């Protein structure tokens, strides 16, 4: 039966891996997750799942060599076997000259309210009821697709330096695309710690309204336009900027657009970006996957790049301290900020639209990817509602565009920032909290047929 294993039992089991003769150091990352997901399409529930898994990832250090083994056999024997396998790998590995040592004993801050019992123990019937509420919102000739997921995760990190940290978290995520009519679609979503804060009716209503308003999109020539990006589209830009730029290792190795740019202006002074997993406004763990407590990091402060985030390895190279941003080992990508905040402004959505002479209102982007990492150029498509704005008024929906655009250039051309922010993307414990943006020039490089 799913339920919290709890810190005492976790500690007792991982001790079996920590007690490893022949090792100079051992670290165990423990993950226990159970979730339920109700997936719907064509306004019916077509794929629903539930699963539970418990895994450990053991990193062993012996004579400066490092090996990692993972297993979902969460028993003392399973833990011992994983540790022995990792130790075997150290025997053939070359010495890791940059190995920074394991995280020292340190108290991880509490994050009250991160675990919601109702979400952890939600039932398929509760999720189905929420989906039915959502699916009732669109008009008759429209249909809804999407997924409602409730998940609970226990994470712990223990090592032979005496560090032990443990945190349970929950997450409820509901997303939908409503489509139909003559042609057109709209999307809406929400991600919260507790399912009680996910308003299925409001999400359904919002997506249905967008689907209604995006009927019969007209063809419009590709080119440069003013643009109003709703938070999901801004979330895509924030996530890609983080991926290309904010990792301490990427910066140190000269692969980041911010390499060698600490203290330099990189975008509009209206832009401030930080990472803060401890904020109650985001979904995140209070420590990283090496067991280092998370710190708030100011990444871009009023347009000036300050610093990236670090794990222990990148911190050693940069002669800095870990900021608590390690991913699970072996992790050749280096550290990553999982809880971005793009600071809000004071404009309403109406202000952003009213300020636009001739531009596009974009609901969200789809299937974006990197074109040029140093220029921070990405490409992707608009999706689920794009409109032409003229003289401060929404005129009509337009067909989807491909954009090919430098993120830092776009952030240099910001004119207004929305006063409300939402969690706009989430993946692997990551959640970016961003507002809408009005940007004076954005490159739409080609158009699609719908």
């Amino acid at each position, binding site marked *: 039966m799913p339920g919290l294993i709890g810190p005492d039992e976790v500690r007792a089991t991982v001790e079996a891996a920590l007690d490893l003769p022949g090792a100079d150091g051992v670290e165990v990352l423990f993950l226990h997750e159970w979730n339920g997901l109700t997936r719907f*399409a064509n306004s019916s529930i077509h794929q629903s799942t539930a699963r539970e898994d418990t895994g450990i990832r053991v990193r062993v250090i012996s004579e400066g060599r490092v090996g990692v083994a993972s297993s979902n056999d969460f028993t003392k024997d399973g833990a011992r076997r994983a540790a022995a396998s990792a130790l075997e790998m150290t025997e053939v590995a*070359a010495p890791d000259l940059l190995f920074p040592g394991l995280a020292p004993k340190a108290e991880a801050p509490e994050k009250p309210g991160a675990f919601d019992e109702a979400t952890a123990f939600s039932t398929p019937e509760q999720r189905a009821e929420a989906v039915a509420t959502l699916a009732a919102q669109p008009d008759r000739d429209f249909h809804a697709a999407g997924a409602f997921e409730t998940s609970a995760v226990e994470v712990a990190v223990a090592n032979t330096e005496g560090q032990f940290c443990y945190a349970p978290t929950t997450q409820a995520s509901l997303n939908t695309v409503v489509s139909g009519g003559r042609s057109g679609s709209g999307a809406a979503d929400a991600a919260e710690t507790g399912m009680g804060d996910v308003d299925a009716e409001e999400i359904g209503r919002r997506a249905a309204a967008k689907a209604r308003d995006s009927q019969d999109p007209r063809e419009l020539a590709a080119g440069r336009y003013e643009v109003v990006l709703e938070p999901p589209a801004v979330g895509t830009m924030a996530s890609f900027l983080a991926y290309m730029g904010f990792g301490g290792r990427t910066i140190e190795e000269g692969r980041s657009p911010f390499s060698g740019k600490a203290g330099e202006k990189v975008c509009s002074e209206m832009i401030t970006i930080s990472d803060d997993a401890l904020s109650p406004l985001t979904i995140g763990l209070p420590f990283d996957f090496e067991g280092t407590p998370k710190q708030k990091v100011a990444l871009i402060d009023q347009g000036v790049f300050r610093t990236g985030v670090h794990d222990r390895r990148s911190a050693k190279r940069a002669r800095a301290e870990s900021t608590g941003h390690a991913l699970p080992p072996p992790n050749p990508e280096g550290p990553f900020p999982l809880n971005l905040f793009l600071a809000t402004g004071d404009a309403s959505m109406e202000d952003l639209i009213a300020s636009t002479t001739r531009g596009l209102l974009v609901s969200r982007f789809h299937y974006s990817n990197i074109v040029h990492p140093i220029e921070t150029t990405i490409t992707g498509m608009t999706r689920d509602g794009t409109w032409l704005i003229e003289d401060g008024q929404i005129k009509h929906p337009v067909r989807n565009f491909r954009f090919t655009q430098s993120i830092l250039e776009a952030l240099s051309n910001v004119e207004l920032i929305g006063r409300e922010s939402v969690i706009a993307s989430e993946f692997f414990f990551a959640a970016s909290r961003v507002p809408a943006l009005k940007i004076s020039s954005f490159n739409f490089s*080609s158009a699609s047929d719908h």
Partner: protein
Amino acid sequence: VLVLEVVREAVEAARRAGADYADARFVSEESETLTVRNQEMEGIDRSLSQGVGIRVLVNGYWGFAATARTDEAEIDRTGALAVSIARAASRLPMEPVRLAPVQPVTAEWRTPIQEDPFTVPLDEKVSLIMEASRRMQEVDGLAFAEANLDFYRRSTSFVSSEGASIEQTVVNSGGGVEATAISGGDVQRRSFPNSFRGHIRAAGYEHIRSLGLLEEAERVAREAVELLSAKDCPSEKTTLVLDSNQVVLQMHESVGHPLELDRVLGMEEAYAGTSFVRPDDRGKLRYGSDKVTIVADSTLPGGLGTYGFDDEGVPAQRVTLIEDGTFQNFIASRETATVVSSPLAGAMRADGWQNLPLIRMTNINLEPGEGSRAEIIGDTKDGIFMTTNTSWSIDDKRVNFQFGCEAAWRIKDGKLTEMYKNPNYAGITTDFWRSCDAIGGSEEWVVWGTPNCGKGQPGQAARVGHGASPARFRDVQVGVR
């Protein structure tokens, strides 16, 4: 035998709880990953994950539940949970799911391999990639010399309430080198044999020995450094010759995904999207030029989509998707084949034990034409040759795409001349495939592996294969800014 008993018990538990149909899979996945950068160990990692997934139909509604524990009480609980999930799904009415018939069989299948990669000593593997890294580092100006090996074994025991009992073991081996050059704020990369960790096949360690990682290491490193001083790929409409490793990406995104029948029926709408292709396009839609024939073939030796049976017990199949340029068939499952009468593709696969099977590409192959890559280039007066994927993006109906490659060269009077960096190209799916006027012959045909195809909610990664030769396309927009 013990594992088969567990899955039989899982099916029985689901039936006792009220399932009209049930199948269960015990899956054990093992992987070993080694990565070296600049002759330092970046990671050496082994993983094991095993558990049971139970899929049920109750009154025509699906339910699925999975657990890592296999004691009897947990299996009973999971079977009953799958049934309660299916019952909850009936909260919204829909046409009950029907399954196309399949002959239930008792069978075993294994990837044919010559040398078990998990028994090759670790120090031999480490020595190989250390040496590849060393050879790359001999080239002046290189920042990072990375080499990697990846091994994967998946053992599945499948039982259905229709009487199927199937045991399979799939083995994949892969490896590659990647050279990164950095200068003046520019980062350039070359990989061999392919980007994103190399060339992965359903094969044993013999595949690694055949890759030629050491022989090609220096050239790859040299090209990465040369790219730093190359010009950007010019922006123009021109003739484009794609290397087979990029034809693979083109086919994956603009043929494989849009022909998955679940996408066509709207079942993936909220996440990956739908498709521009409709059921009544079969036999009519001119998808490509008459040179273009594309099949879905899970019987092809060596592909990552090669196996004996899919995860709903359908035997491996070869289905023609596009024949001489005309769209013929979708990639269909037992459920979707009854909605839109279609041949079964044997293409339902789940990412591990913990996920519901979905329609996934098997091996989606562009049938070979004639001639070598050199001959296709030799027959091209002016154009661009691109190799090795770096980036991909396509719209939610798979119409408008833009893909990037590591390197390109100008073709002038049948010869490769100036090298270009940051090449990309864009187009509209059917326009692009209709412009295909040359496909290389079987001597250039390579079965590549794509081990990270994403789909579904919760997200699942599939290992799919693609056979392709280099191919030529006319009037393509390259150098998109």
